[in-house]
């Protein structure tokens, strides 16, 4: 395994950790954290995909036109995904606030009025 592959492994690990939290944790806040961790893993994957060894940042205006430059698309994608992640996390947390107000608990086992 080369050094360049480490981020891929880490992003896979992050996704697995997040799924673990969703599957085995019963606290709603921890489940939101799990979703957030999966999000981080996917974002890390996107950024890593866009990395080119020796490439120059595409934003530098007076760079030499012949040098290798990184295509900014993956960064833009990651940024968009982070923005969306912010919105989803905020929404999830506000649902948690309201759930706690109505059920007086954050235990997923006890929040099961909708079933069958």
């Amino acid at each position, binding site marked *: 395994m080369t050094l360049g592959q480490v981020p891929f492994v880490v992003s896979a690990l992050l996704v697995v950790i997040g799924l673990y939290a*969703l599957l085995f944790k019963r606290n*709603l806040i921890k489940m939101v954290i799990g979703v957030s961790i999966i999000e981080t893993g996917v974002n890390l994957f996107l950024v890593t995909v866009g990395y080119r060894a020796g490439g120059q940042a595409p934003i530098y205006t007076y760079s030499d036109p012949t040098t290798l430059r990184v295509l900014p698309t993956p960064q833009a*994608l990651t940024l968009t995904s982070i923005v969306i992640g912010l919105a*989803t996390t905020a*929404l999830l947390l506000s649902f948690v606030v309201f*759930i706690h107000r109505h059920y007086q608990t954050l235990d997923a086992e006890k929040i099961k*009025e*909708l079933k069958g």
Partner: protein
Amino acid sequence: MNALLHHAPVLLVAVPLLGAFAVPLVGKLGSGLRRFFVGLIALLTTAIAGYLAASFYAAGASPIVYVLGGRLSLPSGMVAPIRIMFELDGLSVFMMLITALAALAAVLYTSSFWKERSGATLKDSLMLLLIVGIFGMEMTGDLFNFFVFLEITSIAACSLVGFRVWNGRSQEAAFKVMTLYTLSGLFVLLAVGLLYGQYGGLNIAYLATMIGSGAALVDKIALGLLLTGLAMKAGAVPMHMWAPDAYGEAPGAASILLVANSQASLYGLFRVLFTLYGSAYSPQSLAWILIGLAVLTIIVGVTMALVQRDLKRLIAFGAVSQIGYMMLAVGVGFAAMTALQPSDFGFVALQGGLFHMINDAACIGLLFLAAGIVIRRAGTRDLQGMGGIAHDLKWTTAFFMLGAFALAGMPPLNGFASKLMIYESTFRLSPVLAIVAILASILLLAVFLRAFQAAFLGPRTEPTDVMRPVPISMLVSMGLLALVVVAFGLFPGFFVDRIVTPAAQALWSGRDAYIQAVMSGMGG
């Protein structure tokens, strides 16, 4: 091509988006003005969609490409298409019509409540945002944009599900649905990242040319992620658990938009299977995954609907089973298309499945809207506590009955026409599938007879709400859907020829045209 038609695809997204952002400002001027404004935006959107569809079909249903932010030809001669574009083929336009119908009905329905609640402004804004997301998903020609619109629909839909903050159950439903939607969105994003890393592009047409024949392992994994994520958002069993929660807890008008949202995810699934991968990678096992999920969805959906006591959850499980019919028909079409010798019944199956989409939107929408009025009148959602509503609400009763009969496939309503096409084409692939579909349809009739008997028939009961006539706009909204139900039932050939066949052709043989429409203009 005139300017309005040229910009119609983007206006379809931009106009409701403008409306969604402007509603809170307009709402400060008064609720009457706000309702007028929202209605105006919805009418405008529908008019644009109708105009676009009319000119699209008149021009021979060849794909339309709209490039955001610039012209198609790049001065630098860039080959890799990284620009954001909308691309519409027969299937997109067909889905767009379904969404426009659902949007108009939902906005009309919600424009007059018996009682103006606080936060109605927010609800209008969210509904318009959900419409934006659905239209965007159906029109975009870019995989990442598809993800963005997917997330817009997720956020707007879940906010609508959790709109009733004074009700704990709706918060619970919204939290569960949002978690699952986010997860599915992240899987889709992971697939997009995999495809980008492999081919360095995000445009669907560009990726379709790059995938070529004999997909690599990465392509297969990406396909699996996309397939599962989108099937989950469409509500396929065993990933359907969110659907009854969401449909059941959302306000009446939002439920019909959630149905349109599920169908947009199904559209994404079809787009991935038929256009992105299509002839490049289409093993028979893929078709059988789809058929297997579909059969499970049909059986579990309809049997679970039979034992529900909550009226909206009952309809929601019915809606889940209908998603199964669409997946079954398209799966059969896919199997027939990718077999060594493609057979014609596959095309009929595709026609039937797609025709069933618009029929399902109309029937399920009608049922949800009628159920909203029934629940308001009865003061409960429990079928055990209802009865005799037909004495007071004549029109609502008629509409509910029409929707139930059409959904269960009673001739001569629209559900029968599409289901007949599904049965007869599915029978050619495997008689067992057709038998399952027919039996489930009969059981569905039983489900809705039970709901109808329990809620509408029986002796008159004391209404808990103050007796007031149903607002005229709600009746108009349901009448619109009822008109679709009857018209599509009496003249199915007319509509199948005009709008369904181009959509089925886009799936059956439109892959090259879809790719060519983008790639020919990109110099590569």
